């Protein structure tokens, strides 16, 4: 399949390990579908951002006691890759503008990294769920 053909991957997951594996598998399938190599820089940058948002969602997006899975869709069309993640965690508005922390900090880089790696990082609270949208032109 050439890069002009649309691509779509859908999954729902609950566990951290399972979810991370699915996210990386989906990018690998897109990479193969597009005929790109593991060193393809735009796709590698997108996968890095997806790993950051995905791990945040999987870590914080499933409050104790909830059975709600994380819903995930990866699409590629017209030269643009877009991922959406939906979780049932608490609202995260206050974290969105977080800047890159000092070198000695061991945490808090994920959102700043994702913002700088993507063309667009969208977030909105929709009722009881968080909806994330990650967009990058490849």
């Amino acid at each position, binding site marked *: 399949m050439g890069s002009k053909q649309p691509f779509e991957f859908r999954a729902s997951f609950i566990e*951290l*390990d399972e979810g*991370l*594996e699915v996210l*990386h598998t989906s990018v690998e399938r897109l990479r193969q579908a597009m005929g790109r190599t593991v*060193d393809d*820089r735009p796709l*590698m*940058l997108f*996968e*890095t951002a997806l*790993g*950051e948002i995905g*791990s945040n969602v*999987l*870590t914080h997006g499933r409050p104790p006691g909830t059975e709600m899975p994380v819903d995930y869709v990866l699409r590629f069309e017209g030269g643009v890759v877009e991922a959406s993640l939906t979780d049932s965690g608490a609202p995260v508005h206050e974290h969105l503008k977080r800047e*890159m922390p000092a*070198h*000695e*900090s*061991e*945490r*808090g*880089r*994920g959102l700043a*990294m994702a913002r*700088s*790696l993507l063309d667009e990082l969208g977030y909105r609270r929709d009722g009881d769920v968080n909806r994330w949208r990650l967009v990058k032109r490849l």
Partner: protein
Amino acid sequence: MALDVQTRQTDGGIIVLAATGRLDVAGAPALKDAVSEAAKNGSSRVVIDMEGISFVDSTGLGSVISALKQIRGSQGDLRLAAPNQQVRVVLELTTLDRVFPYYATVEEALTGF
């Protein structure tokens, strides 16, 4: 893919931690455990062989920062060897390449350490 960490000691007494897998939120504890074990045994010079690390995220990076603090806290030092392109990009993006000297190979990291 869980992170696997193999520990060996060179003739010169340097600890080499060879990690394989993804150094991410799921894999970071394995690296932290290996570094803590090395520090507990009094090792002051540690090289993390990253050749087998396919992907790093900010939590994985945090475990490397934690390792650096722990080792430097006991007057030692840490070097990174053989990071792939994705790991180098993350180090540069976070400007942590200014904090961590990284080397193309383990042999280069061991030279003069």
